[in-house]
């Protein structure tokens, strides 16, 4: 496959807010049907990177290509139509509307369909995330897990080819987290390209085939998950040298 048609190819991406550099010379590719995990301490620039990819922010400099198109100057809407969908770290439901209406909007506008034609896709997406039974409930009154599922259902309803998940497992109980991981695995296995930012490492590592570590807006390491988890630099920056979780993961 040529580099131009990759789901995502980023070169020399730079973004700063005044003196604060939040993305510095970031370059990486994401292959079709792969799952990339992004980790890093709070404030490392992970969500900023998603905002840059999804079009919620415009980059200072650098190139963002997706499926052969330069999307760097497109707004969020056009990137969505181009096949990029995201879930928000803090769920952003349309609170005054039902779960079904939330997903219907995504299917109608993300795919450019009329309401009638969009219903079919909305129903498929909402059932897939296990929210089917709560379709007619108000999004604003849902539990955190259901709102996270709704984020995922909306993203899927737009018919994406590249799915950006921002800390979708954060704040969930162990059991809820397991359910969500198996759902994301299923989506990945059906051929979706995924980039996933996550602090809940065991959830992330169960799904992704590559991990990238960000710190102060820079990529400090990337590679296979087990390699990265053994990298002493990553351990020092991200988890602290004596992290229990790291020991647990590395056995």
């Amino acid at each position, binding site marked *: 496959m040529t580099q131009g048609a990759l789901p995502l190819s980023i070169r020399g991406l730079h973004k700063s807010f005044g003196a604060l550099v939040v993305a510095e010379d970031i370059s990486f590719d994401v292959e079709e049907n792969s799952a990339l995990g992004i980790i890093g301490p709070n404030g490392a620039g992970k969500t900023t990177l998603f905002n840059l990819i999804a079009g919620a922010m415009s980059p200072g400099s650098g190139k963002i290509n997706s499926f052969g198109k330069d999307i760097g100057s497109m707004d969020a809407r056009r990137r969505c139509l181009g096949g990029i969908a995201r879930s928000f770290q803090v769920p952003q439901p349309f609170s005054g509307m*039902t779960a079904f209406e939330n997903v219907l909007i995504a299917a109608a*506008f993300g795919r450019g369909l009329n309401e009638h034609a969009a219903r079919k896709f909305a129903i498929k997406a909402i059932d897939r995330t296990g929210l089917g039974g709560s379709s007619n409930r108000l999004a604003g009154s849902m539990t955190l897990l259901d709102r996270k599922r709704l984020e995922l259902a909306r993203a899927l309803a737009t018919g994406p080819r590249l799915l950006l998940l921002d800390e979708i497992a954060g704040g969930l109980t162990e059991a809820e987290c397991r359910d969500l991981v198996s759902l994301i695995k299923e989506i990945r296995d059906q051929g979706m390209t995924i980039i996933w930012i996550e602090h809940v490492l065991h959830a992330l590592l169960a799904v992704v085939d590559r991990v990238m570590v960000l710190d102060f807006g820079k990529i400090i390491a990337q590679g296979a998950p087990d390699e990265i988890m053994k990298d002493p630099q990553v351990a020092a920056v991200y988890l602290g040298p004596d992290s229990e979780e790291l020991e647990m993961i590395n056995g």
Partner: protein
Amino acid sequence: MSKSALRVAIGLTVITAILAAAPWFAGRADLRLIGEIMSYMALAILWNLLAGYAGLVSVGQQAFVGLGGYCLFICVIWFDFPPLAAVPLAALVAGAAGAIFAPLLFRLEGAYFAVGTWVAAETVALIFAAIPSLGAGAGMSLPTAAVKAIASSRELREWTVYWLLLAIGMGVLGGVYLLIRSKAGLALMALRDNPTAAGSLGVDIWWTRFWTYLGVAAATGAVGSVIFLQKLRISPDAGFSLNDWTAIVIFMVVIGGIGRIEGAIVGTLIYFLLRELLVDYGTIYLIVLGLAGILVMMFSRSGLWGIVERRLGWSLLPTRRLRE
């Protein structure tokens, strides 16, 4: 047509029919009051569409009321238009003004946008006040011949204007309801609840806001033209009054419930109820209105209709898309 839409259609038709027959059983003062309620209901529904749904908090809607009014007077006095034919033209002119303002104002956000709309409206008012052939600051009156062209007798004239106000009020209500039930309505509700998410799910925020602003400007212009057709006189102070055409309207929508069509209707009725009840108490009336506004903002951000909707689950104008 779905069951809920059919119920609304029947309900609105019955109400319109009863109100249309009002000249035969209601007095002159009552007709004037109902007509005024209709014009304010239209303005409130339109402002709510703009601020409550599209997130465009305008405090400059008086620009379009005044433009609509002036347009009617100019058409009638300068070009001998029949007054009723000038109403659609007023909508066209106000819509065109909206199309010119929008690209400039949309560069501003939030409070800056609000101030920008106010400045734009003041600018339009100052321009009209500076044109001598429009009577400058003093304004102008409709000539007797033109007034007589509406209808031969005074009674019939008053009825005609009343029916016109009724048509515009109910027309705006029905039109906005249909809009919210359409795909554009989904975009507007998405914008109301969460613009960030709307954009990332493919909703075209700029154009949705543009067409809303333009449509609201045009309809507001039409309302303005009929309001001043009834008054028979227009001046820059009256036509472009911030207080009459925007401040009161904002009050109505806020106490009724912003972001719901019912909210604008309920707010209009409450305003007129308070006004009629307190009419003998002078300035106390304004104090009570202000207090009511503050209380609602403190205790129910979704207005009085929001409380009804939450507690009782009522919906007079259902727009829900249910999954069967």
